[in-house]
């Protein structure tokens, strides 16, 4: 079974995915580029949480 930590990480990705989907549905050009998707996921699922942890 997934651990509490696994589920917390999964939840974070789900929130990031929900925002990605909302942007993509509104502006579909956003969905076409793998590089945009890559930059988005690195930003939201690694850079932002890392910065938040560092400053809190």
């Amino acid at each position, binding site marked *: 079974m997934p651990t509490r930590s*696994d589920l917390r990480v999964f939840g974070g990705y789900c929130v990031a*995915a929900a925002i990605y*989907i909302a942007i993509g*549905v509104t502006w*579909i050009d956003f969905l076409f580029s*793998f590089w945009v*998707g*890559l930059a988005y*996921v690195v930003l939201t699922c690694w850079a932002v949480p890392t910065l938040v942890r560092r400053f809190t």
Partner: protein
Amino acid sequence: MSWAAHDLEPYAIQKHAGLKLAFVPLLIGSYSPDMMSKWFVYGIHLGPWDLKASDPAQFHRGWPGVGFTHSLTYGLLIGLLIWKVFGSKLWGVSFMIGQFAHALTDTGDTVGTMLLFPWTFHFHLDAWAYAGQTGRNTDAAAYFSGLGCMWDLVWIVYGLYSWRVLTSAYFDEVIYRADRFWPWLNRTIPRGALLTLYRAAFFYGTSRWIAWTIWAHVIHHYPYDLSWGGPHWVPAAHP
């Protein structure tokens, strides 16, 4: 053509191969057939110029055209080239298997692929309509209304069922250990960022699948047609 399977299949393949394959070349191989050609299939505007293939299906999958990129021969040759030029059998074999997955998956549509190029016969299962020639929006609407999107869904569900392949522990024990590329990258990029990079294609494929489904069926109300060869409301291309 497939919209998410090429992002997701490498995770399933890696799950079964474990340390025998490297994830990065597997993913590059899975993307490689469409890397240089997709923009010309859909067309782009560059200032006053409209650049688009006169026969997108022929250009994308046929010969003359760049259809050879969807053949097993191409995967084998580029895999051998990677092995001999860069001296990495692991990368060569991983690339080849990723490319094979792409070429085989694309036999599912009505145009299919020339698997055994230079034999120009198209292997096609006709399960879903190839509609690249209609432009990217109509193609998306058609793909996400037929069996193609259901094939993608199989990989999403299988990926979630195999959730361990996306965990930090799996990344450390298998992905990172299988390929020296990751320790090399880790000299400049923190491990947390590498883990996110590893998960990116799964995130991209799954999120895109959901977004296009919402776009096609909630916003635009394109009808689902899950019959073989559908959706039949779009003119499907054939070889």
